[in-house]
């Protein structure tokens, strides 16, 4: 790609991304408001008693007495100025709530992602290198097994083994609470808590990346430039690294971009099983409590992340692979 065309391309992509995000915001707004029940009735319900005045007060305070289009307009206006609204249920601004919980989810999904990519690609490369041997079979079977096991079930089993039986790792939470710790100790502590959830979330994607990279590597290995390199007597290890792996990474990268959003979805389950204080659980609890603003805030935040991630992977793709045209 010519670098001179990059700014125009980027601008076009950003505009498109903004439209997608806006569409998501509007769509979410209507979906969420279509759910039966509203935050006022839930707060009233959970406070153990209610009267008509109380409900009216709450609805007026939350702006629920306004027509839906007014509520949508207010919300859109807010989003355009990056004001995600206020959660009356939790008496806190949505941005602050999401911001508080985002690092935990990024840490979890990031760790799971790196774990999945590294282990998955290694397994895939290994299997492709020794295609047809028992190595290949074992890796293929393992990947299939990871793929076919329900995520939450793996989590439960890991807890049973490592927390209950062996007592090696903590079963829930993100850090020890009430213990004073130094910098290194704190990092180690979080690391210990992170291990099981990241493993649980990552296993499925290990399978996905293992299969994907094995397949693409086999495909690339068949192509002319590899055959040429081989004919020229380039050492096998070098061919693998310089030619095959690099090219085989492209579909993996694309796929990872698409998967970014799915990781967040999976993190709801994992965050529930491991009491991980991330936005997946924030979203799920907000849904159950009809805390509209928070739910929409999480959606907004994840869509922005996914769109950005897609953009980055596309750029990466375009830069790495000269065959891809930027249009």
């Amino acid at each position, binding site marked *: 790609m010519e670098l001179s065309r990059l700014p125009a391309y980027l601008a076009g992509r950003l505009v*498109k991304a903004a*439209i*997608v995000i806006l*569409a*998501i915001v509007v*769509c*979410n707004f209507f*979906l*969420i408001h*279509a*759910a*039966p029940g509203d935050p006022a009735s839930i707060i009233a319900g959970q406070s153990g008693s209610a009267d008509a005045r109380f409900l009216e007060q709450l609805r007026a305070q939350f702006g629920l007495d306004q027509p839906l289009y007014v509520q949508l307009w207010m919300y859109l206006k807010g989003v355009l100025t990056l004001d995600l609204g206020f959660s009356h249920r939790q008496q806190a601004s949505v941005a602050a709530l999401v911001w508080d919980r985002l690092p935990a989810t990024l840490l979890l999904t990031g760790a799971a992602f790196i774990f999945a990519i590294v282990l998955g690609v290694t397994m895939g490369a290994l299997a492709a290198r020794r295609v047809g041997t028992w190595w290949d079979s074992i890796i*293929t079977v393992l990947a*299939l*097994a990871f*793929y*076919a*096991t*329900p*995520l*939450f*079930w793996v989590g*439960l089993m890991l807890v*049973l083994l490592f927390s*209950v039986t062996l007592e090696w790792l903590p079963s829930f939470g993100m850090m020890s609470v009430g213990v004073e710790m130094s910098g290194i100790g704190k990092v180690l502590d979080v690391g210990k808590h992170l291990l099981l959830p990241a493993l649980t979330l990552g296993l499925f994607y290990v399978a*996905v990346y*293992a*299969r*994907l990279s*094995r*397949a693409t590597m*086999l*495909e690339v290995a*068949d192509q002319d430039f590899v055959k040429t390199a081989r004919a020229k007597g380039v050492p096998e290890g070098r061919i693998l690294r310089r030619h095959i792996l690099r090219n085989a990474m492209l*579909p993996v990268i694309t*796929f990872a971009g*698409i*998967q970014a*959003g*799915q990781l*967040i*979805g*999976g993190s*709801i*389950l994992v965050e*529930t099983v491991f009491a991980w204080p991330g936005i*997946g659980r924030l*979203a*799920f609890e907000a*849904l*159950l409590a009809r805390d509209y603003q928070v739910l929409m805030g999480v*959606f907004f935040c*994840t*869509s922005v992340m*996914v*769109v950005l991630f*897609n953009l980055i992977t596309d750029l990466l793709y375009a830069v790495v692979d000269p065959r891809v045209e930027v249009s």
Partner: protein
Amino acid sequence: MKTFWRNFARNRGAVVGLVILVLVLIVALTAPWIFPGSPWDMAGAPFAPPGEDGMLLGTDSLGRDVAAGIAHGARVSLLVGAVSTVVSLVIGIGLGAIAGYLGGWVDDVVMRFTEFFQTIPSFVLAILLVAIFTPTIQSIVFAIAVVSWPPVARVVRAEFLSLRSREFVQASEVLGKSRISIVLGDILPNALSPIVVLSSLMVASAILLESALSFLGLGDPNMMSWGFLIGSGRSVIRMAWWMSVFPGIAIFLTVLSLNLVGEGLSDALNPRLPRNRGGKP
């Protein structure tokens, strides 16, 4: 057909998968005879371990037979998997065909729409949909279908894009065939093999998705599915491991077999390609 079978059978995994799948289907079909009566009936003492009390796989917290639950659950889980796959195939093939065949701005709009669905985390969307429409078997199937069609649309579009310019299609166009008959009669049959492979994997992920929804308490309370069994066993896992382990194995085997069969199909339908293309979320 013969070559198809030969190619399929060359993949030993696929044969194993097919055998497992057929066994699961047999269990599902014969459940009412093997385990007559409702799987919800309290058949024995609560929390009886496997083998005790005449219960092969033990009983649950209300004394219901886990084995009966798994057999009857196979019907529900497979049904959810199959129906939601059919629904999302209809959506995905429809949109993909339109985009791929017409191209131009239509393609652009449809692909934006598809991207849009891929941007929203699918599991979160599924939860939202089931919560809005309250958990019933219909709303669960609908939600799974809504979140699983985009890959189909992409695959179909790609196939259509490449097939559209082939000679036989152009020949049909010259002959004045209607667009619909070209799409259905000429292009679609030639695009079928990746769709077939994809759909076996989609059934598998639909079963997983249903179980995840059930796990979060968003299953149909009148349908005993495998997800329901795990979900209800999860909180007593320390006391009655059998309640979640056996349904877990049932899901595992079924999803595994569907994947193996999918790979076998891929081999058989696309003998040129190296085995195991993967790439299915």
